[in-house]
């Protein structure tokens, strides 16, 4: 009997790994297809979709689609716009939402629970329903630029950033995490002489790596994938982000190889950001100083 148990265990482990590999494959294959297709001319690309060759870098492989993509659209500008808008929004939203959540989690004020409930309730409102009213609001906001005071935020970076600096999901994530932190840490800091902002910045933020990483990833994806709002508010190419840029490849004749090359290029920042934060996420899981 003693010899049976390890064999069973090995079998179980093997099956578990097999299942994980299959699930992993389901997620990785579209990406492999995209990257491999971006290296093939259109004719071969379409022919290969009928076989396993669709996932293999075989046949007439080159970087031509990438060069063509750069010719067809200002890819660099779109990526820059997206990274700028997404970067500022992620940083701003982490700061604002975590501060709001800090107040909801640790400060006492009248109506706190009602305000929090109202914020969370906004989660159920689809963006499409408020897009038009929001468009009207941003179109009547003042802005100071090189031309002095002007009205309307259309065709700008701020119109893509400011409306998304605070959102219910990020606040909710932070509130949930902060509420689970030991209250004594905050009390100890207050007795040590910390003001509320110091409690937030010197004690809470450094031990909240996991939630900052999670919120950053979610916000990054949401912002980077924005399509409807930038399409509505940016008529000028100068401010357009990557997703709106995609339509350049569907005008006239659709070049699928170029589409795949463009998609591969714009996926890179997302992957890099995710991998970077994944490391931060793991590094920040440290045990607390509270006796468990």
């Amino acid at each position: 009997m003693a010899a049976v148990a390890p064999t069973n265990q090995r079998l179980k482990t093997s099956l578990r790994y097999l299942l994980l590999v299959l699930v992993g494959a389901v997620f990785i294959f579209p990406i492999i297809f995209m990257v491999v297709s971006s290296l093939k001319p259109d004719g071969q690309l379409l022919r290969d979709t009928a076989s396993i060759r669709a996932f293999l870098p075989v046949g007439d492989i080159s970087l031509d689609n990438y060069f063509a993509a750069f010719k067809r659209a200002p890819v660099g500008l779109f990526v820059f716009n997206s990274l700028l808008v997404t970067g500022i929004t992620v940083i701003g939203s982490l700061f604002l939402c975590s501060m709001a959540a800090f107040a909801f989690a640790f400060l006492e004020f009248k109506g706190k629970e009602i305000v929090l409930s109202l914020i969370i309730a906004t989660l159920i409102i689809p963006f499409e329903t408020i897009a038009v009213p929001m468009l009207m609001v941003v179109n009547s906001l003042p802005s100071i630029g090189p031309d002095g005071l002007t009205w309307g935020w259309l065709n700008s970076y701020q119109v893509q950033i400011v409306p998304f600096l605070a959102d219910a999901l990020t606040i909710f994530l932070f509130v949930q995490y902060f509420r689970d932190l030991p209250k004594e840490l905050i009390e100890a800091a207050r007795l040590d002489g910390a003001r509320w902002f110091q409690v937030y910045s010197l004690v809470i933020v450094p031990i909240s790596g996991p939630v900052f990483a999670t919120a950053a990833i979610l916000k990054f994806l949401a912002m980077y994938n924005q399509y409807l709002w930038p399409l509505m508010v940016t008529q000028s190419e100068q401010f357009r982000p990557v997703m709106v840029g995609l339509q350049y490849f569907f005008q006239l004749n659709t070049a699928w190889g170029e589409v795949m090359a463009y998609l591969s290029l714009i996926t890179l920042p997302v992957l890099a950001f995710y991998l970077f934060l994944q490391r931060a996420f793991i590094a920040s899981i440290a045990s607390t100083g509270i006796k468990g």
Partner: protein
Amino acid sequence: MAGLSLSNLKKTYGKVEVIKDVDLEIGHGEFVVFVGPSGCGKSTLLRMIAGLEDITGGELRIGDKIVNQVQPRDRGVAMVFQSYALYPHMTVYDNVGFGLRLNKTPKDVRDRKIREAAQILQMEHLLDRKPAQLSGGQRQRVAIGRAIVRQPEVFLFDEPLSNLDAALRMDMRMEISKLHQELGATMIYVTHDQVEAMTLADKIVVLNAGVVQQVGSPLELYNRPANLFVAGFIGSPKMNMVEVSVETAGANAIDISGPAIGRLSLATEASGIVLGDKMTLGIRPHDFQQVPEGPFKGTVTLVEHLGNETMVSLKLANGEAMIAALDGDTTCAIGETVSLDFNRDKVHLFDSGGQRRG
């Protein structure tokens, strides 16, 4: 250093009153222990002093300043928490120096103070470690170190030893006592462990249901408990309580009787006791002696040999249970009938309202 004055201090949560009109004076450099059962309000009272709980009513003074509305950081208090509450992302050095960093103490002064505190608490070798790399006892030292460096007027300890094992708890108890002597600071210490209370305190405050039951030195509380609650709470094992009625009441003596003891005569100077009064007679387990024929006779239900003494639990004829601490070499077996007498000078008498009468 400063004393504290609490007058009519109140705390309510909604309609629930958890601290009821507490009046208390704490002198400079005194070691005061708040003791009481779970939920009695002792930690709440400490947190009110720290400024972590709002004060609903009354007045709190630290030194000669009313601090009801003063922020915790400006009260001149430092607190050691039961859970240690060390900042997990900081080293021991940074944990201890956090308060000094916040009040912008120059770096060299900060460094000197941190190292002095580390020396007092014998933790110089731990300064570069993070809390996760420390044992429970070491973490507690760091928490105390963090309090020491700020040189507060008042130290507050909220059940600081509860998470330690028995041996470490005794060591840390001695260290806290030594620290109090060295620093001469005012210290307020919350515990539900009466041994900690008895060994550490200059003054004990016994609380129950948000009300101060008695304030006094450990021996005062042990020898002259003000009421049945204090009598039952202070002393281990618990004081034995016997229901009696007054048979005759004289100027200097009374006769009492009860189903457990028959009839007895006690010398007492208490006035106002009248014939027929229902009273409670309290006898500490350590005031019993085994005798051939005494007022208490019962069957042994449990014998615990502790070496220096033997705890004998008895069931009396009327079914009441009683415990006696007898000599260490006492030999009696479960089921055996033993007879006990007690030291008449050390009995405690409480009236039907539970207040001490003699």
